[in-house]
């Protein structure tokens, strides 16, 4: 009877695995291959606005005939048209600079939180998470009112007398950086805090007793210990920033080129679905390296 029950629970087990597994296959993995397929197609005046790539509706011969119509033109144009090259490079540049900025802003905050009195810490963590629960779109929108020419920041600077004429911040890359740092800050603070909080403070006391100045102790002890948090935080922010659409669209100007924005315009404004797919495929190829690194880092921390 026990064996029978075990057998039944074994079957149940597989059913339990199968449901989420199948769901993610159908709604996450297979759609990517679909995007890849479509990226080889060409645009058409039809609904949906692309030429079918291949299916078995026309039999085997039809399948091969369609296969021959596939084109690499979409992908190639991404590498030859300077508009796209520029958008990719500029996305990577903005993501890299933002990641460094976020790290610089987040580190002292996470450090201060980890060294706060123990009974305060969980409340501080809660307060970092709280803005994250409120709408991302609304928080980006709030910056429009602050950064505009007649915005609060310019008003404040004029009042201080630092400037005698409003400076243009909104619609520049500066506004995009401010918006990105602001929106992604919690994603960096939390992993940093998690590693810093676990750190044994007696190590610093020992270093101080041995005559090590605090700054040197920081670089030799604290920073290496926090490295897993630094790595996790950087990956968590770098990848989504590269494909960011909302922030450059709302805070940046026409001069801000980012690939998420390009993809959106190719899709919605130009209705060139095959080209938009090719943009996504190439972006994904670029992001594969950091995504794989991120997964390995996750696995390493899981193994610990």
């Amino acid at each position, binding site marked *: 009877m026990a064996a029978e029950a075990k057998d039944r*629970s074994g079957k*149940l087990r597989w059913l*339990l*695995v199968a449901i*989420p*597994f199948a*769901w*993610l*296959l159908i*709604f*996450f993995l*297979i*759609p990517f291959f*679909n*995007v890849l397929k479509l990226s080889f197609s060409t645009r058409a005046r039809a609904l949906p606005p692309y030429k079918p790539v291949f299916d078995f509706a026309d039999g085997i011969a039809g399948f091969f005939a369609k296969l021959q119509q596939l084109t690499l033109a979409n992908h190639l144009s991404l590498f030859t048209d300077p508009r796209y090259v520029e958008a990719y490079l500029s996305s990577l540049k903005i993501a890299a600079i933002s990641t460094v900025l976020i790290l610089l*802003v987040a580190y*002292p*905050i996470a*450090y*201060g939180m980890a*060294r*706060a009195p123990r009974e305060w810490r969980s409340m501080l963590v*809660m*307060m970092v998470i709280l803005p994250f*629960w*409120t*709408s*991302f*779109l*609304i928080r980006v*929108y*709030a*910056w*429009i*009112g*602050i950064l*505009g020419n007649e915005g*609060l920041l310019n*008003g404040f600077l004029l009042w201080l007398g630092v400037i005698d004429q409003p400076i243009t911040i909104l619609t520049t890359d500066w506004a995009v950086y401010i918006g990105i740092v*602001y929106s992604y800050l919690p994603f960096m603070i939390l992993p940093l805090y998690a590693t810093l909080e676990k750190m044994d403070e007696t190590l610093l006391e020992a270093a101080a007793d041995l005559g090590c100045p*605090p700054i040197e102790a920081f670089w030799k002890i604290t920073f290496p210990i926090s490295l897993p948090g630094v790595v996790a935080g950087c990956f*968590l922010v770098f*990848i*989504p920033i590269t*494909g*960011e*659409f*909302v922030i450059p669209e709302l805070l940046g100007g026409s001069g801000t080129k980012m690939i*998420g924005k390009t*993809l959106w315009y190719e*899709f919605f404004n130009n209705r060139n*679905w095959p080209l*938009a797919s090719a943009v*996504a495929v190439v*972006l*994904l190829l670029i*992001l594969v390296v950091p995504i794989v690194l991120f*997964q390995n880092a*996750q*696995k390493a921390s899981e193994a610990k």
Partner: protein
Amino acid sequence: MRKGQSWFNTTSVALGFAFLYAPIVILVIYSFNDSKLVTVWGGFSTRWYVELLNDQAMLDAAWITLRLALLSATLATVLGTLAAITMVRFGRFLGRSLFSGMIYAPLVMPDVITGLSLLLLFVSIDIDRGFWTVTLAHTTLTMCFVAVVVQSRLVVFDRSLEEAALDLGCPPFKTFFVITLPLILPAVVAGWMLAFTLSLDDLVIASFTTGPGATTLPMKIFSQVKFGVTPEINAISTILITIVAIGVIAASLFNKRREVERQKAERLAMQG
């Protein structure tokens, strides 16, 4: 030395929190601004809230968004909890690294790619886009967040409790609902709330996967903001912020209460 260090710590935490909260506070204050210009203070007024209540299109969008978030968060919680159990309990199985990849990848994947790929899926299997396609899209995205949250709780879970129940002849299914689920409930609730707010918040994926008649609130806000800043958006933002704040505070009180009760029960058990 110790004193100087803590001065630095306090300042950086205070400045950090000021940066995180200032825009939200400013937004809330200006939602009560009488002036039509968002940046000029024209006295206290609730006129934008009144205007909002008369904006039927905005209310419709809010209603759709709410139903969508309730439905997709619930589906995502069931699927995400199953996925977390699979990840933690089932050891090695064929396709495990593929499965874990599919759970972590959506967390960092740019929204434009996820949105585009789901849209093309819906087009190629030829289903009408609208409320249901957005629900499917949101469920897929948010179940991964639920899985990660629940997983972190399951990892520190004491399995001997489950084993004891099974040894005493409790069927696996019942064991799950009587023992496992109540113990991981705080994580499941947190996962549901995260899924719910992510769904309320999403603009990009919804824009790709929606169809006629299913305009969500973020889509509505986004298109209004593109036309120019209107104080009505401040009012609706303030309402959303208030709802979320109440929800989060209620949930944390609920968790704290459970924790206190659990500790009390443990103490009693020890004494008994």
